[in-house]
Each structure stands twice: as structure tokens, then as C-alpha cells.
């Protein structure tokens, strides 16, 4: 972890304290904590304790008598020891061979009481208007619980239990989302604290916690607060980061396509979350599609289609199968989509970016083109030859620059205005000069922009068709077809721009699509094309 600053400093302090092997607790503190915690659990479950502030103030008095609230350090230790005690109780219970419901009820009995204690202490720390104290305490507690989790994960290894941490996090979150003015005033900081904590506990850091983690980040209340309730979309970037954490973790397991059961389970859960987001928050997927596609392995076609199929809810997409649909006439294709990733900054090293910009300006020197490949290639290992994020950034940057350039001349992008420019030089060079692997990644980077009607979709659709038409070998045309087709033969949803591009390719006689050998290379491929064509051209006879 980077050096912590700002609000996260308290989370990191909490983690450090929980993780330091040399606890050096003052003598008797463990016993005191154990006594106080048990006392509180009894109070919480007694008839009047649950909602009574009186019982709570009496308990705080008790804590004071035992000197727990004297220093920050002692408070921290109290929370750490309490967390560890709760976890121990849970692990002991889970080892028993009684009915699962009974075991779980016992675990919740302890955990829920502890959670309420935290919530009350956070709510009542400092004056009622003093939000800083409350948030500091919350950050600290979250840090301590996260630190205990990481420590526990390391020491127990395969015996690690997700349950206690899962329940502490979610129940505390629900408590802090209660409709009370004190809590509403700090809600955004609560969300921030939780996002930081979840980011710290991302699956690549605590793989044994990954299922609970996915449950936490996809909990309906959490998604609701992050993406809907918080005004001005202030939670969107943080939520996007958590999804990127998930995709990054899955990537090495998914790219080999041999899914073991545990991976399949997490993958299915991920698809479900994406479906929920596609249905309820399509604009969120639209805005962050670039960052997501950057980390999803190229072979995860359906997963990427879910993201690329998202379109703003106020938009009506024309049916791609409409005969003689004139995409050029759609008003939407003059508007650029919002891309919330600074992809220009991803073009590194800075010298390469400088050379790129000067080439786009002067269309010289030609050596820039011949050196392009070596700038993108990072190794000679098959399957890992290219810097994929750099490829994606390059494609996106050159494309957006091309649109701006064409517009600056008072024209609009179409099949003829996109040709014969520095931008198209780069694309054509990549098409011809890269090997199969590189070209596959390049064409995927282009296809990732084929989405709902907007200026990028239109430009890259034209680009792909142009590259097909101008290709000097069949291999290139076959690969373009492959990239489009493999995104269409998976189950729905299919991005609009992808359908539009493919239909144009097989319908427009200028591409002589059906004359190509690869269309007829094998009977099953031929059948596949025929069936796709049938569904695409169903209204042609009319």
C-alpha cells in the first residue's frame, strides 16, 4: 500500500496496529475487554437493552471506569481485542456439529451485539455536530477489522472463515445507513470509508474473503447508496474501482478458459452483478466501459458485451435489422460519449506520446510507423507479447483525434473522410504490420468502441469496414470477421454498433463478403454464416 494520507490514514493506522505482531497489550486489558464485551452482549440481548440509550450510557460509564476510553491507543486495542474475541467465538461455533441454523444464530448473537456497540460509539462520539470525530472513529474501526482479517487470513490460511468479517461489515453498514439525521450527515464519508476498506481487502489481497467481498460490494443497499442515493454521481468512481479490482482478480483465471468450480462461482456472481448494473444503472457502465474493458481478458466476450451493450436510458436505438437503415442520418452519431478514463495519459513513455502527436500533426516521419510495433510489444512470449492497455489507449486516442481533425475541416466522419490521414496510416499500419496476436488485440480495441449510436461508434465502425475493404490479404479480412463474429455468436446482449457493423459487412456488395474463402472454409462455419445472415437479412426479400 502507498503511504496513506487524508481520511484513509486512520484506516491504515488501524490496519497497522492490528497487524503488528508485537501487541504488547497492558496487563489485564484482554480480561477487561473480555468482561466488558460479554457484559455488553448481555445488555444488548436483554429485554430493554436493544434500543435504550440509557443502557448504552451506563455501559460507556463502565468503559470509563475500566479506563478503556482514556487514550486513543487503549480504544484501538479494545476494538482489536473485541474483534479477535468475536472471531474466536465464531470459529469455535462453526467447528461444532450442530444444525447449521443453530450455529449461525449463535454466531450472530455475538457479532450483532458487537456491531451495535461500534455503531453507537461512532454515533455518539464527540458532539452531535462533530462529524470529524465520528468519521475518524469509524475509519479506525474499519481499519482494525480489516487488519484483523488480513492477519487472520495469513495465519489460518485455508482454515480462514469469512463469516465474522462479512457480518461485521454488512451489519455495521446497515446500522450506519439508518434514517437518522446524525447518520445522514456523514453518509458520504461512511461510503468513502467503506470503499477504501473494501479496496484494501480486494480479492487479490484476501482471496479467501472473495465470496463475502463480492456479496458486500453487490449488496442492494450498498449499490443503491453508491450509484443512486448519493447526489451528483459522487460514488460512481469509487464503485468503478471496486469492479476493476474484481475484474483484475478474475483475469488470470478467466483467460485460460479452464474454469474450476470456485472460479465459475465467482464468475457467475460477477455476471449477475453486471446484469443488475446493466438493467438499473446502464449510464454507469457506459461511462466506465473503457476502464472495465481494459482489465477484462480478451476472451471474456459475454462479460464485455454486457458492458458494451449499455446505453443511456433516454435513448431509443433504431432496430439494426431495419432495411436501408441510414446510420449517417442519425442525430446521435454527432455526439461523443462520455469516457471517464484519462486514456491519453495511458500512452507511455512520454517520448512515444510526443512522437505520436507530432506524427498526427505532420504525417511524418515514416519511421514512426515502422517503430510502432516495437513500442507496443513487451515480450516474445506467445500470448503475452503486447501491452494491451497501451494498445487500447493508442486506438482510442488516435480515433478521437481523427474525429476532431475531420470536424476541424468542417466535415463529418464517414467512409471517405476517414481515409488518407495520419490517423488512418496508423490503423492501416497496425493492421498490416502486426502479427496475428497483435492484430487480434488491435481489432478488439476497435471493436470495444462499437456501442450505442455516438460519434465513436460511428467512426470506429467506418474504420473497421474501411480496413476490411482496403486489406491486402485475406488473413486480415478473416480476422476482422472473426472478431465481429465471435462477439455475435455468444448469447445476448449484443452491442448495437457491433450488429450494425456486421450487417453492413455482409449486406453491402462492395465488401464481396460471400466471395471470401474463409466464409466457406468448413461446412460448420458456412452454416454458421448462413444462419447469422438469415437472422440479419430477414427483411431483405420484402
Amino acid at each position, binding site marked *: 500500500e502507498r503511504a496513506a494520507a487524508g481520511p484513509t490514514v486512520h484506516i491504515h493506522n488501524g490496519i497497522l496496529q492490528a497487524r503488528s505482531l508485537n501487541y504488547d497489550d497492558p496487563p489485564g486489558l484482554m480480561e477487561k475487554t473480555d468482561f466488558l464485551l460479554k457484559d455488553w452482549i448481555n445488555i444488548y440481548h436483554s429485554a430493554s437493552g436493544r434500543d435504550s440509550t440509557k443502557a448504552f450510557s451506563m455501559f460507556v460509564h463502565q468503559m470509563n471506569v475500566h479506563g478503556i476510553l482514556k487514550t486513543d491507543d487503549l480504544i484501538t486495542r479494545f476494538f482489536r481485542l473485541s474483534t479477535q474475541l468475536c472471531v474466536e467465538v465464531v470459529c469455535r461455533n*462453526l467447528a461444532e456439529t450442530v444444525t*447449521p*441454523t443453530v450455529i*449461525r*444464530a449463535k454466531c*450472530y*448473537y455475538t457479532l*450483532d451485539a458487537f456491531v451495535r456497540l461500534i455503531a453507537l460509539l461512532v454515533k455518539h462520539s464527540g458532539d452531535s455536530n462533530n462529524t470529524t470525530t465520528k468519521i475518524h472513529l469509524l475509519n479506525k474501526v474499519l481499519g482494525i477489522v480489516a487488519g484483523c482479517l488480513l492477519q487472520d*487470513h495469513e495465519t489460518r*490460511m*485455508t*482454515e*480462514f*472463515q*469469512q*463469516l465474522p468479517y*462479512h*457480518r461485521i461489515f*454488512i*451489519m455495521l453498514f*446497515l446500522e450506519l445507513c439508518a434514517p437518522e439525521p446524525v447518520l445522514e450527515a456523514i453518509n458520504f464519508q461512511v461510503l468513502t470509508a467503506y470503499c477504501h476498506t473494501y479496496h484494501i481487502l480486494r*480479492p*487479490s489481497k*484476501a*482471496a*479467501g*474473503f*472473495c*465470496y*463475502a467481498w463480492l*456479496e*458486500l460490494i453487490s*449488496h442492494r443497499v450498498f449499490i443503491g447508496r453508491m450509484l443512486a442515493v448519493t447526489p451528483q454521481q459522487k460514488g460512481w468512481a469509487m464503485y468503478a474501482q471496486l469492479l476493476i479490482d474484481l475484474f483484475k*482478480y478474475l483475469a*488470470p*483465471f478467466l*483467460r*485460460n*478458459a*479452464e474454469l*474450476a*468450480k*470456485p*472460479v465459475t*462461482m*465467482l464468475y457467475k456472481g460477477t455476471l449477475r452483478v453486471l446484469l443488475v448494473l446493466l438493467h438499473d444503472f446502464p449510464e454507469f457502465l457506459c461511462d466506465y466501459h473503457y476502464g472495465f474493458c481494459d482489465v477484462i481478458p*480478451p*476472451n471474456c466476450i459475454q462479460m464485455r458485451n454486457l458492458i458494451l451493450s449499455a446505453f443511456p436510458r433516454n435513448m431509443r436505438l433504431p432496430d439494426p435489422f431495419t432495411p436501408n437503415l441510414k446510420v449517417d442520418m442519425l442525430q446521435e452519431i454527432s455526439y461523443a460519449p462520455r469516457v471517464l478514463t484519462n486514456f491519453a495519459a495511458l500512452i507511455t513513455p512520454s517520448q512515444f506520446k510526443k512522437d505520436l502527436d507530432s506524427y498526427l500533426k505532420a504525417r511524418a516521419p515514416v519511421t514512426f510507423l515502422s517503430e510502432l510495433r516495437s513500442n507496443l510489444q513487451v515480450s516474445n512470449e*506467445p*500470448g*503475452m507479447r503486447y501491452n494491451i492497455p497501451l494498445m487500447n489507449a493508442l486506438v482510442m486516442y488516435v480515433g478521437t483525434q481523427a474525429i476532431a481533425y475531420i470536424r476541424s475541416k468542417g466535415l463529418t466522419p464517414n467512409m471517405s473522410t476517414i481515409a488518407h490521414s495520419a490517423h488512418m496510416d496508423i490503423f492501416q499500419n497496425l493492421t498490416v504490420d502486426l502479427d496475428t*496476436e497483435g492484430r*487480434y488485440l488491435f481489432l478488439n480495441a476497435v471493436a470495444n468502441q462499437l456501442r450505442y449510436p455516438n460519434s465513436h461508434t460511428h467512426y470506429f465502425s467506418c474504420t473497421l469496414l474501411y480496413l476490411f475493404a482496403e486489406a491486402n490479404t485475406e488473413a486480415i479480412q478473416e480476422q476482422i470477421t472473426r472478431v465481429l463474429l465471435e462477439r455475435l455468436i455468444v448469447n445476448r446482449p449484443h452491442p448495437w454498433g457491433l450488429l450494425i457493423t456486421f450487417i453492413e459487412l455482409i449486406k453491402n456488395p462492395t465488401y464481396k463478403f460471400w466471395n471470401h474463402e474463409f466464409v466457406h472454409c468448413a461446412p460448420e462455419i458456412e452454416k454458421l454464416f448462413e444462419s447469422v445472415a438469415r437472422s440479419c437479412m430477414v427483411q431483405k426479400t420484402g
Partner: protein
Amino acid sequence: GVAPLGAVPLQKEHQQQFQMMESAYYHMPHPSDSERTRTYLPRNPIHTPPYYIQQPLPHSDTLEFYQRLATETLFFVFYYMEGTKAQYLAAKALKKQSWRFHTKYMMWFQRHEEPKIINEEYEQGTYIYFDYEKWGQRKKEGFTFEYKYLEDRDLN
């Protein structure tokens, strides 16, 4: 192919991650782990034959649906599903059927006839009430329903 770039063996780091994930797979989170404790009706997932209904009926979380339920069902929901939306809907449906909740006795009352006395503080007459201990409706004559015990919050 499903791995167009070819298979790449997992690095050591990823193998370790897989091991931890695999052990976690054998104690997955339970649906109840992220819910408030259900004292009387804990979740108890079990495989039921596919020809049995697997999901509740659509719109069964609406007031209209609850109004079609038997009074006894509503009482059951009210007493055994505390702190849920179901309890809230059951209470609303009961109120619509002129049942009133007595906050001291924690029972629901319904006028059996027009009260003999009505004043600012109470009303008195014959009532039907639901006894949750005996689990049945009972009649009480000459009962005084003090208004200070009337639960009259607007449920919205």
C-alpha cells in the same frame, strides 16, 4: 477458441490465491449472513423438487396482496416476522380491516359493536382481539381501550 491467446500457466501468486478461494468455496456465505437475525423463522435453504414453486408469486410484496390474506395469516406475519417489510404490510392490511393495535397488551383489537362510551380518553364496549399466546380470536365485553395505548402512527 475460448482462449484465443493461448493458455498461460498460473503464476505462483495466482496459485496461492486459488487455494484460498477454493477453501472459501467450501464455506460460502449463507443468505442469512447479511440479514437481520430471524428469531422464529430462520432461513433453512433446502433443495425442493423443481415442480414445486421455487419463488414467491409476483407482486406478493404489495399491500393489495396482503389484503387478500386471511386475518390469521396477517397475525402470524405480524408476530413471527418482526422488523421486516412483511410485518409492515401485515400491519397496514390489518388496519385497513379496522383492527387497532394496543401498545400495552401488544394485541390487535376490533370493535365487535359500536362502543357504549366514547370520550376524549377512551372508549368502552365489546371487542374481538387476537390472543397471540392462545393463538386465536377472543371476545371481551366491557373492555376499556385507552387511547394513549392506541398505536396511531401513520404507516406510509
